[in-house]
């Protein structure tokens, strides 16, 4: 068929469409994605960028649009990594073992808020929060219990920990030592992304400058001692949860990534020394095709940045490796079983987008932490996609879809506009300090709420197709006496540990923090001597001060 024939047929189609529209209008005046990319009724070869080699290329090759491995899931499936943790270290260890028995392939630890903000369980600031949104970890002793019976040389562990990431990583290394697993053999990830805490998640402790120092100290330490460890998981997930669009998620995440790269270079590290261990974390949201496009666009953007702007030579430095979690904020408290369907579609989009690991949310997460049964269904959702749907049998199956390629180009173009704006503001750290991303996200969140309330945006079971009587599902309850139990455990620990060694190592840490040396070795020493997270973070608070939100 010649181009002329094609143009002729296209015109004919358009004419027929116009005749139809005159008779019956479409469901909406305008169709658009979450990022306000207008969706046309039809995409044709004209929408595909003609530079296949430059922009799409081959999987496992620069610019990685089609994936970071040459054969993707034909070789190895993504890591099924369910985020879990509640109550005590014993209870969470039990849940970990259950998930591994059920076929999960990696661990992901949820810590409670006091742990995430560097308070001991008996600190007045921890009142009511102990063990609520994750497991309570006060010292190495709790970490030993948490990881009991889990072979750290075989299982990789992701830890959602940011401001005190150095402390939890040190605890993990120390547990490895006790198991006889050398640090060089440990594999896993710490989130360690402080910028998105200021932007969207709220578990910051220190101001940006010392926080960035902690992060680059971890980069340097791990490059030397824990080479398989992903030293950061640069997160768009929470930015999206706070209300951003897909485009903002890509743009702000990559802007944060640039800030970390710049900070590490400024600290004297070589790009190819730390960049291979940078990883990313995205949200799996509702707009199916835009989500797939988002992953592909982000891979291409990161590869180009690393190669062209920063001159990275090691292909591993160019690869945007990403963990995905389905979008918690898309779940409804109404008719919670509907959430199973939402999660399925979101997980499928992440898989078609080429994610390296995946957490699927449980149906009851708009109400509480998941019960064992809900967590199992969420894991089964991944397994059904992996083993029954056939989508894993070929690489990047939607490449060449006129629509998906068009969206990939659009997401990239619009994200680049944001990146330029952030550059003008002086980079991500300056933009965060000025509240720029926070304001952009809030505007979008309010807009979404307005659309939901006006019915323009439909949420099944919530603002349409509601039920008169909502049955109340069984929910997980965290032991309300846990705060007291953790306090007793802490008292016992303080009575039996070598308190002189604790004081000494804390004093060394203080001296290191006041100077410029790498903090990781001092933190590791404190941890080995059973100093608590509150004591360690207390010293750092003294020296660094605390961040106050803009």
């Amino acid at each position, binding site marked *: 068929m010649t181009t002329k024939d094609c143009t002729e047929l296209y015109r004919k189609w358009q004419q027929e469409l116009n005749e139809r529209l005159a008779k019956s209008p479409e469901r909406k005046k305008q169709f658009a994605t979450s990022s306000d990319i207008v969706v046309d009724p039809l995409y044709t070869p004209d929408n595909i960028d003609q530079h296949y080699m430059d922009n799409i290329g081959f999987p496992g090759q620069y610019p990685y649009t089609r994936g970071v491995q040459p054969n993707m899931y034909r070789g190895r499936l993504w890591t099924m990594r369910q985020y879990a943790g509640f109550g005590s270290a014993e209870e969470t260890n039990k849940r970990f073992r259950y998930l591994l028995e059920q076929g999960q392939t990696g661990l992901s630890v949820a810590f409670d808020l006091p742990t995430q903000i560097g308070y001991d369980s008996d600190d007045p600031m921890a*009142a009511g929060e102990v063990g*609520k949104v994750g497991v309570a970890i006060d010292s190495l002793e709790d970490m030993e219990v948490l990881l009991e019976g889990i072979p750290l040389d075989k299982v990789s562990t992701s830890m959602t920990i940011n401001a005190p990431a150095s402390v939890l990583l040190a605890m993990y290394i120390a547990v490895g030592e006790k198991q006889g697993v050398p640090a060089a053999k440990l594999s896993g990830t710490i989130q360690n992304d402080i910028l998105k805490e200021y932007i969207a998640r*709220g578990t910051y402790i220190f101001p940006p400058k010392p926080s960035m120092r902690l992060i680059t100290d971890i980069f340097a330490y791990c490059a030397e001692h824990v080479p398989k460890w992903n030293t950061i998981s640069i997160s768009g997930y929470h930015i999206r949860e706070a209300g951003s669009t897909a485009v903002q998620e890509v743009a702000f995440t990559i802007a944060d990534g640039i800030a970390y790269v710049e900070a590490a270079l400024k600290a004297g590290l070589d790009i190819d020394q730390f960049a291979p261990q940078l990883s990313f974390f995205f949200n799996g949201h509702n707009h199916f095709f835009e989500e797939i496009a988002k992953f592909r666009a982000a891979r291409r953007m990161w590869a180009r940045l690393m190669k062209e702007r920063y001159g990275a030579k090691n292909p591993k430095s160019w690869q945007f490796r990403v963990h995905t979690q389905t979008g918690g904020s898309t779940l409804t408290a109404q008719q919670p079983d509907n959430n199973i369907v939402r999660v399925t579609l979101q997980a499928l989009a992440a898989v078609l987008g080429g994610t390296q690991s995946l957490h699927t949310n449980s149906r009851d997460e*708009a109400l*509480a932490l998941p019960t064992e049964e809900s967590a199992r269904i969420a894991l089964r959702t991944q397994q059904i996609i992996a083993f029954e749907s056939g989508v894993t049998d070929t690489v990047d199956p939607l490449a060449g879809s006129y629509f998906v390629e068009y969206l990939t180009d659009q997401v990239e173009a619009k994200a680049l506009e944001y990146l330029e704006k952030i550059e003008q503001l002086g980079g991500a750290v300056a933009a965060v300090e000025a509240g720029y991303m926070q304001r952009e996200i809030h505007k979008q969140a309010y807009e979404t709420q307005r659309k939901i309330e006006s019915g323009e945006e439909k949420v099944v079971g919530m603002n349409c197709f509601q039920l008169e009587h909502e049955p*109340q599902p069984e929910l997980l309850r965290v032991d309300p006496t846990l705060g007291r139990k953790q306090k007793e455990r802490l008292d016992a620990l303080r009575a039996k540990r070598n308190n002189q060694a604790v004081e000494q190592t804390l004093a060394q840490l203080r001296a290191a923090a006041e100077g410029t040396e790498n903090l990781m070795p001092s933190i590791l020493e404190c941890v080995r001597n059973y100093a608590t997270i509150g004591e360690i973070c207390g010293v750092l608070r003294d020296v660094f001060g605390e961040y106050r939100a803009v």
Partner: protein
Amino acid sequence: MEQRIRVLVAKPGLDGHDRGALVVAQALRDEGMEVVYTGLRQTPAQIAAAAIQEDVDCIGLSCLSGAHNELFPEVVRLLREQGADDILIVGGGVIPQEDIPFLKEQGIAEVFTPGTPTRVTADYIRAHVKRKRMTLQTAPSKIAHIGIAVKSLEAALPFYTQQLGLPLIGTEEVESEQVRIAFLQIGESRIELLEPASADSPIAKFIEKRGEGIHHIAFDVDHIEDRLQQLKENGIPLIHETPKPGAHGASIAFLHPKAAGGVLFELCQYPQAEGSKEESGHE
């Protein structure tokens, strides 16, 4: 200057998720309220202190971490301790249905769970803020009239004119209320006898339900629109939110009997009253 409801939106505990708190804060501002947001990680003591210092009518607590059962009641306790228990406290966040009865028992007036339209929250706050707002309006100047429901003007009038000797000023039919009225002068006020003009008029229904007798008391007021607005903002239930035409060219509006223990009050503003009185100033 109209009085606006003041709300403190607060994040107790360590939870860093403030999308909901920020959206609600913005929505309440768009609803005409003054909103103060505390920011993250506030202790109950800090929240209570801020509420008193900011002189708010309502506190909205948001918590998604599951610590609500410990933190919300503590805020209530501290406010009571400091004699500020007239502040309305509402909550929201990830809160299971089964926890709501306990929270209400502890003094949280209402809990808005995920999916609640912001308008619902705003309306609830408007209707339930308890504090007496310093009134900007002067008190009503006098009783304009007392309305008495009668089955028949003809049958009722002789008692008032012949036995009491009250002068009959005239009669009028008010279409909007489907009522025929006879006016009798008494000092600076009046008695209004109200006869239903149709079987399904409000007066007919009143007589059917409660028999003949005192139906309502009307106050002579100025600035009727501002007054109604203020009453509405203070959560007083109204039958008419905006004035409508009454007898003698007056603008009138009825408050709901729920507002005053079953007594039906009417506000009346007469045309000559506007501007003839001194403007009520306030310091």
